[in-house]
């Protein structure tokens, strides 16, 4: 198991390395000179050349990438804004804030949003999916299937403002969504995130409902399940002991990808509810062509997806004995 994990981690590092090259090169393909952002209104070729020099943009692209990697691993004291400890993504062009510190400052918001929503959509999605599979062909099954189809066709940018209008601005049932530090006040942290959790998990739960239902139905038709039933085991025992575990494999796979993506920033949700997480940071970095920040957020998001996939791979072994044996 340890060898497996080490192998996967090394693979992830290689992927991240390749991704960093691609991302870095992509930025140089952009039609905009980042130095222009810092050049101010009296920009002229001389001052532009000076900024190119300060930012290291007058060096060759491989050289610039080498410096970027060096800073990432070892940190740097070469920035005018101050020291930049590893992992150093540099300083934001727009705000002059350290990129890594900014991302770590925004991470708790994204983490809270993602984990809270994940708990809700897993419980609701798997629960309704299992019930629909258990009662396959009944009115309940049809209702759940149709309902999940309708809900999954909704989008956060539609459902979010609708929830805000109905639950906050019209009825005043809930307070405006906001991120409050959990350690400062868990109650305001919880109340501020209820609506984003509900909206985000509504969209995801419907997908998990359909996935759980179909996966479970498929499992119930497996030979080993039918054999267990033929041996006289109760339906309930077979359902939970054999079919349920088997049905989790595809769900865990998708969950790993979803979780990784969300941890990299639930862009639309954060933007809709004004939550200052990594998704909002990604939007702002694009808005201001803030390349160090954009690079940082992209690589962090990629790392989250890779990490979650490694965790998912590890989970297979615990969920499915066949994986463990192989």
């Amino acid at each position, binding site marked *: 198991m340890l060898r497996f994990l080490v192998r996967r981690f090394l693979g992830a590092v290689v992927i991240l390395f390749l991704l960093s090259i691609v991302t870095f090169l992509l930025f140089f393909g952009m*039609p905009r000179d980042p130095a222009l952002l810092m050049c101010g209104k009296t920009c002229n070729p001389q001052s532009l050349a000076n900024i190119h020099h300060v930012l290291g943009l007058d060096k060759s692209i491989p050289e610039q990438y080498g410096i970027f990697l060096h800073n990432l691993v070892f940190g740097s004291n070469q920035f005018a804004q*101050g020291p930049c400890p590893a992992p150093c993504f540099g300083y934001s062009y727009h705000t002059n804030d350290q990129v890594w510190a900014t991302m770590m400052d925004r991470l708790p918001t994204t983490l809270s949003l993602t984990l809270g929503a994940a708990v809700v959509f897993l419980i609701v999605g798997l629960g309704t999916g299992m019930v629909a599979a258990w009662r396959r062909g009944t009115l309940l099954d049809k209702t759940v299937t149709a309902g999940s189809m309708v809900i999954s066709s909704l989008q956060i940018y539609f459902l979010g403002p609708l929830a805000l209008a109905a639950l906050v601005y019209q009825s005043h049932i809930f307070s*405006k969504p906001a991120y409050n530090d959990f350690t400062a006040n868990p109650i305001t942290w919880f109340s501020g995130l209820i609506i984003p959790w509900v909206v985000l998990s509504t969209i995801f739960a419907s997908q998990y409902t359909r996935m759980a239902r179909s996966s479970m139905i498929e499992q119930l038709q497996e030979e080993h399940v039918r054999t267990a039933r033929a041996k006289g085991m109760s339906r309930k025992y077979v359902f939970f002991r054999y079919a349920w575990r088997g049905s989790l494999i595809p769900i865990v796979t998708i969950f790993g990808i979803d979780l990784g993506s969300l941890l990299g920033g639930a862009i639309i949700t954060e933007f809709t509810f*004004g939550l*200052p997480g990594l998704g909002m940071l990604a939007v702002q970095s694009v808005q201001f062509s803030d390349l160090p920040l954009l690079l940082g957020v992209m690589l962090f998001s990629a790392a989250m997806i890779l990490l979650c996939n490694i965790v998912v791979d590890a989970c297979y072994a615990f969920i499915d004995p066949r994986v463990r044996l192989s």
Partner: protein
Amino acid sequence: MSRGGRQTYAALSVLAAGALVLTGCSKGGSNANDNEKKDQQNAKRQQSSIKFGNAADSQGPAAAVPGAKAGGTLEVLQRDSYAHLDPGQIYVSDEGSLATLIHRGLTGYKATSSDGSKHEVVGDLATDSGTTTDGGKTWKYTLKDGIKFSDGTPITSADFRQTFERLFASFINQGPTYIQQWMADTSGSDYRKLLPDGPYKGKHLPDSVLETPDAKTIVFHFKTAHPDLPYALAMAGYDVVSKKGDTKEKYDKAPLTTGPYKIQSFKSGKSMVLVKNPNWDPKTDPIRNQYVNQMNFTFNSQYEDSTKALLADTGADQTGISFNNSVDAGNIAKVLGGDAAIKARTVAGYQPYVGQININQSHAALKDKTVRQAIAYALPITPIIRAFGGSAAAEVAGGFISPTVSGYDASFDPWGKKKNPGGDAAKAKALLKKAGKLGLKLTYGYQNTPEGQQYSTAIAAALTKAGFNVQRQDIPAETYYDQIGKVNNNYDIYASAWGADWPSASTVIPPLFDGRAVADGSPNYSHVNDPKVNADIDAANKIADPIKSAEAWEKIDEYLAKDVINAVPTIYYKQVQIAGSKVGGLVYDDVIGGIDPRRLYIK
């Protein structure tokens, strides 16, 4: 406060956000007209009444706001976080509004009426708005007694020397550059050669440029007259920086403040808390009040969100406000509708920006004046107004000078747009035929924003109807001003906008139309280089009398719009803002171009 080039994009992004829904204010036609008249009256009063105050005008404390009381917490909902807190880096209006609370300079704008419609430039940290005995070449300022930074250290002339000298250092690159250029008697960024490293390597500006003979006296020496210095010094970009506390780049994150509030905490992109500055003495400040105990800023609140929250008026939002968010286009009709309670907590006014459609005079076919006349007649303004949210968000422009700037003439309408905002395709076609250019190809570069997409389609259709062969080409919003700012760009016509830095057209006409400044990145987007305009600019810049100066700028403006036709004025930008029901002292300030944060209190 002006936003040119990339800044203008930021400004227009701010204006544009939320303007996705058309609002013709159909419900409130008469209300809209009433508001428009009131806006114009306020602007007229303001642009005609700004004078330079004397020592008596510059004495604190500021006039009490009627009914105001101290205490409470103001919740400020802002869309954008503050990128800069260092006065030297402040130029955009969001940070300018904040600066009115935390920073002070030698001069400032004092409201002389309780509705915020009249102002004068007075001494802020200085005892008066400045004295000159040679028509504006030499200006003398004396500091007031009892002025301190938020850490309790007294403010001296050495701090002002530091303030101005550091503006020459390369890391100061976002703020205004007028005074640096005047000191160096040069244009562009060549001023940096006067003191390339700022004061940080032991060199200083010579006494022939900046004199600080004692702890309280500051004397500016310019080679040419600059009668606008009191206006320029009122810009946040020239507010004082502590010599002792100057941490260069790091000052941008944690500056020492001098205004009635100091920064308790600032989490970039998330929140900011301002608390009362105990070292601010109201007796030294003729401009600001300090009623609210604390201001809690929350960023990332989109226009629609802040409008809905403030309209709902519940909980903390009752004491809520936004200094810079406008009412979103979808809610303008509701806000300006018949509900008196909502109208009572709403303010509206002009922004300093004027929109225009530039005609690229580097292209041969457009050197024909008749063709440019045809374009001017054909252009419809109605689609632009609609795209930005209707009559509450924009108004037909006659010239390039905004209603809030001296030299504005409400009756000036060279192309009949005020009477016929839809354009005159027939007249345009006749002119084009006369020029023998029917079917002339026009490449129209438009900004790829929801508004740009919307109005550019209608403009292209109108020009096509007038006989042009219009090719629309989208330009990504992020690089729009970079693209049209190139002298050798491929577009024939394109939109831009510009705002005055102070209520004088000297901050509008020269940057936009001085032909000697045509270069990549220059805001002279039409590349106009008219000898008469250039000469008139030089002459107007030398006029010390503000009234005569305004007349001179007005003449140049009219000559440009009517005879040169390098660009067609389109709209004056306006905005509507709203606050919670428990916020008092709500006034729209034409100089700030938005709500005046300095007089707010909690009811």
